[in-house]
């Protein structure tokens, strides 16, 4: 029986965070929050279907990238909003522009889902990244290049987001 069609190219991550759905939504969509955890980019979402999604580098990010010999583009990530249903569901396309080979792979698709947990105090945040045709990006967001300084991907970003929302400070130094 062969049923495997897309599976291996999709990654799913789920984390429980003691915060309201609204706080989690803001932490994903507002630049004053996205600058404080994970890869620390400045996200910009036009939250309607067809709206633009971009991530710009902070001055610190740009300086760090350039110090390591990476020319840093003005836009690190671009994409399009497909669905935006605050504070529950956000679907966008996603293309990584930091690296020319990854940019070449084109657009992938990320779904964020926020669901209040039965305990009434926390929410689950589920990130589903469909990465068909993007093996380089898939490896990066899976955290495979963490040891070489490329960050730990979604698991790392989400752990950091949880830490920021629950304790007021991120894990990353």
């Amino acid at each position, binding site marked *: 029986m062969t049923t*495997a069609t897309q599976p291996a190219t999709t990654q799913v991550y*789920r984390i429980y965070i003691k915060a309201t759905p609204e706080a989690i939504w803001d932490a994903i969509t507002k630049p004053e929050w996205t600058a404080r955890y994970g890869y620390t980019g400045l996200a910009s979402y036009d939250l309607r279907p067809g709206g633009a999604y971009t991530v710009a580098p902070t001055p610190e990010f740009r300086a760090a990238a350039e110090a390591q010999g990476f020319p840093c583009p003005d836009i690190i990530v671009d994409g399009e909003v497909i669905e935006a249903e605050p504070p529950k569901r956000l679907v966008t396309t996603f293309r990584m522009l930091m690296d020319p080979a990854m940019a070449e792979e084109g657009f992938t698709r990320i779904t964020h889902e926020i669901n209040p947990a039965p305990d009434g105090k926390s929410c689950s945040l589920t990130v589903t990244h469909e990465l068909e045709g993007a093996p380089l990006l898939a490896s990066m967001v899976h955290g495979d290049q963490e040891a070489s300084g490329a960050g*730990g991907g979604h698991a790392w970003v989400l752990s950091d987001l949880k830490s920021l929302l629950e304790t007021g400070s991120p894990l990353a130094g």
Partner: protein
Amino acid sequence: MTDDRVFKALADPTRRFLLDLLFTRDGRTLTELESELEMSRFGVMKHLRVLEDANLVVTRRSGREKLHFLNPIPIREIHDRWIDKYTEHHTTALLELKAELEDES
């Protein structure tokens, strides 16, 4: 309390085998997973249920199918909370020993 569920879920060879299967190839159906084990469908479902309760496996619908995905986050949290603390100490101790020995020579 979440840690308890994760440790309990990991304390079983069949469940660790299921996680290894998903690590090798993610997003599988119950039927695919079942075919790798000499166990009843019901038995495999029970194990998957424990893994889901521990948030180690997350399921997604794809058409008529329910696909099982390995969620690495709870293991990462355990690593950050329990492993880092001890390995860091060992590495530091070894590095200090190295520095001391090299100083003497």
